[in-house]
């Protein structure tokens, strides 16, 4: 069994080593891209079943973002939705025999966390300005500045470790059980892994939303405005 903590390149493109998580991610990107293209080619006012599922997904993402951030979900919809969808599909890719989910490798989780970290900076500065964003580190008092800085870093690391630990451990346990007990014994664990993967995708996406929401100034969403006006 491969060591999940180590990663070996499958091939090289020039000096760049191409590892298995990268290849699986490409496959996921291709699948999601093709599916999205095909599914959204002929969108109509009166939706098909597939379109209804897609709209339900998008509106659910927007609803979650709106509830957490209490603001307009439109700027964050793509980021949060992509993170959730990618982690979900990546976690569920373990169902395919011989495929390790990219999220079971810390590089993928770190890449996702890095993107979230950059998004926090970008949306925080974009919302409050540089001075305003930096001023949030002095809240509630300037004494908290070191702790807030450390918090920014640690919570990013917590995103990485939480996702990596859960997915990797699931894969690790299934591999061990599979090697010990045979073909059908790991199936309940795999089903549990599906649930874990879904929950981890949701947690990662919600935490990213919470972190971004904490960084941006609170702005009422158009929906909230409408609700108030009514």
């Amino acid at each position: 069994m491969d060591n999940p903590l180590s990663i070996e390149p499958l091939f090289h493109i020039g000096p760049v080593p191409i590892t298995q998580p990268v290849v699986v991610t490409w496959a996921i990107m291709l699948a999601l891209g093709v599916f999205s293209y095909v599914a959204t080619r002929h969108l109509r006012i009166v939706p098909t079943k597939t379109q209804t599922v897609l709209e339900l997904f998008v509106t659910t993402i927007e609803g979650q973002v709106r509830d957490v951030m209490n603001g307009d979900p439109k700027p964050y919809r793509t980021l949060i939705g992509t993170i959730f969808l990618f982690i979900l599909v990546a976690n569920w890719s373990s169902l395919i025999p011989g495929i390790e989910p990219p999220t079971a490798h810390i590089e993928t989780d770190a890449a996702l966390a890095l993107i979230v970290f950059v998004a926090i900076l970008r949306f925080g500065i974009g919302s409050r300005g540089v001075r305003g964003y930096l001023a949030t580190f002095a809240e509630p008092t300037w004494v908290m500045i070191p702790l807030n800085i450390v918090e920014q870093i640690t919570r990013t690391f917590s995103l990485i470790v939480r996702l990596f630990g859960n997915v990797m451990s699931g894969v690790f346990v299934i591999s061990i059980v599979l090697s010990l007990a045979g073909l059908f014994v790991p199936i309940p664990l795999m089903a549990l892994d599906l649930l874990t993967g879904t929950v981890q995708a949701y947690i990662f996406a919600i935490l990213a939303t919470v972190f971004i929401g904490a960084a941006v100034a609170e702005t009422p969403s158009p929906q909230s405005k409408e609700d108030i006006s009514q």
Partner: protein
Amino acid sequence: MTIDWWTLGLQTVNVLILLWILARFLFRPVAKIIAERQAAAHAALDEAEAAKHAAEAARAEAEAARQAVLRERAEKIAEVRKDAEAEKQRLMAEVQAELDKARGQAKDELARQGRAQQEALSEQAGVLAGDIADRLLARLPKEARVAGFIDGLVEAVAQLPESTRAGIGLHGPVPLRAAQMPTEAEIAQLRAGLDTTLGRAVEIEVTEAPELIAGLELDTATAIVRNHFRADLDRITAEVRKHD
């Protein structure tokens, strides 16, 4: 545990590319179609609201028209009633006038008929009186129809004015009508009375006139002296008519 930085970098790029792909082919189109549906729903709602307002306006307009029609109807009914009342009054006035006229005519007719009836009754009374007198006289001797009236005739001549009396019998015999032909004695008595009254001798020319019933009538150029029942009956009848 080591981190493959190449993999980290590639995965970062991969996720960014996936972000673009999904934004381009999934989230934007789906969000766009949701927005279009919401816009269509809002447009439909606005259209329905506008249609509702239009329907309410049309209903209000129809109600106003209905009220106007009701007002016009009430006005026309009142006008027709007023005209009918005026026409009724006019017709009643006409009928009343015609009734008054007919009543007047009937009253006149009744009066006329009453008068005619009265005249007829008077006439009949006269005729009846004549018949009664004739029947009563029939029981008397025939001489009584003349002899009893000689003195009265003479007295009536005597009461005539002198000038009138002077003209009697100047130009011929005095015409004398008698209810029946008088006897010689009666003629002699009559001549003697007239001679005495007139102061001269006159001739008498007697003719029989049964219509006088009883009595004599002297008919000269200057005077007519009647002393007979017919004249009395005519006088009585005239008096009765005058008193009616």
